[in-house]
């Protein structure tokens, strides 16, 4: 797995932190990955996105670790329950902060963030999206856009995890991994929102991976971020996390 995150120049100029976060857990042959994007106009969005990514991976892992699940069909209710817990925790955090007079008007919405989540055991894949950003499954034969990146480029339009109607905007996908699956890509909207031809975009990414070592590819992702910034695509924070199902990288020469 590789994950790279870049603060957008707009945030750097405003001395704001990178509000994207990613987190993962590995347990018993399952990988739990989350990528979250804090909504720019919300005061504690960077805390909300970190909490969401960290907690959803931990909570989902705990559920499957406990063996209480009757199987992968439980995925959606389990995910909804974990997200409800996270929302409650953010609510509590807001209430506790209100004790301080300067924080009296803090609410859960100040922690607004989007969430992308993936769980795979190398045979099956479970994905969820709340808000925006994109998840793509790249195979040898095709590129599957699992979720259309909701065009939520405005922080006050995107439906985040803290929104009252978040469940209405929750998208879930369960699928068997195709035999020719190469990698899964989770991207915040800073990257995904400008991809109009996923097939071409990810063919290029796959080609770049195949001619590079892991370190070289990470440097290439730095260049991709620079390309987005310099060509005026996005000055937002950008995060890309990739789960590889095959060995694709050039071997490191020792």
């Amino acid at each position, binding site marked *: 797995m590789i994950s790279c995150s870049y603060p957008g120049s707009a945030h750097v100029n405003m001395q704001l932190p990178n509000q994207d976060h990613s987190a993962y857990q590995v347990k018993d042959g399952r990988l739990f990955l989350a990528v979250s994007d804090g909504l720019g106009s919300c005061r504690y969005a960077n805390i909300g996105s970190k909490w969401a990514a960290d907690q959803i991976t931990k909570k989902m892992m705990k559920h499957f670790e406990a063996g209480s699940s009757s199987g992968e069909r439980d995925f959606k209710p389990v995910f909804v329950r974990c997200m409800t817990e996270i929302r409650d925790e953010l609510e509590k955090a807001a209430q506790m902060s209100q004790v301080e007079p300067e924080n009296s008007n803090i609410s859960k919405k100040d922690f607004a963030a989007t969430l992308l989540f993936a769980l795979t055991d190398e045979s099956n894949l479970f994905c969820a999206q709340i808000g925006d950003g994109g998840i793509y499954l790249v195979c040898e034969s095709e590129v599957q856009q699992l979720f259309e990146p909701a065009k939520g480029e405005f922080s006050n339009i995107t439906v985040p995890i803290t929104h009252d109607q978040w469940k209405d905007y929750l998208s879930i996908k369960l699928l068997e991994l195709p035999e020719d699956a190469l990698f899964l890509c989770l991207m915040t909207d800073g990257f995904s929102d400008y991809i109009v*031809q996923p097939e071409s975009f990810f063919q290029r990414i796959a080609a770049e991976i195949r001619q590079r070592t892991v370190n070289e590819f990470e440097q290439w992702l730095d260049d991709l971020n620079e390309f987005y910034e310099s060509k005026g695509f996005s000055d937002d924070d950008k995060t890309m996390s990739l789960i590889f199902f095959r060995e694709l990288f050039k071997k490191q020469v020792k």
Partner: protein
Amino acid sequence: MPIQNMEGLKHKTIPVIFLIDTSGSMDGLGITQVNVNLKEYIEDLKTDPQTKEAVQVTIVTFNSSASIIKNFEPIAMLVPPVLTADATTDLALGLCKLMEVIQEKSDYIRANCKRPLLIFMSDGNPDPGCKWKPELDNMNADYIMKRAVRVALGAGNNINDSTLEAFILNKETDRAVKVADVQDLREFFKYLQTITREMISNKPLSTPLQAGVDSVELVNP
């Protein structure tokens, strides 16, 4: 080495969609003000390097019939229209025509555009018996239009607040606003210029007051 080009990427445009009442009550000063200020709005955005490539304009008008005046035309090449006013106010037909455009362009919008900005402008209530609410529900259920930022403008006092408020779907972004007189339309279009630019640059959208146009009032703020 810096990346020189990257396949599959495209800058996305904002579809600005006007739904304009051109019924008889708008005749005279009303439609003149719309034409003058719409022209200024277009000329302002088409000459600004930051906006001229970023906006596509659609104009649908309605009275006792509905017409597509502009259909996703890039603002850089847009010739401002000269609208005329006549007949009754069949909002249902207007909404229906607007959805024809959206459905026809649906794949294009999803692939190439950001969220649309929908601007509804009227100076009076829809005709009695006009079944516009089911058409509005239809628009509100549409994948693209559900996500549009909406501004519903009432000019003068002959339009009910409830008609304007019916356009509001997302209370955080959508605005129902009023101007007391059609002569205040200039201020309204100034407000549109501000929020169009904010949408292009991914900024939170201003209220009329934040945009410095105090003659444009929010309905039930």
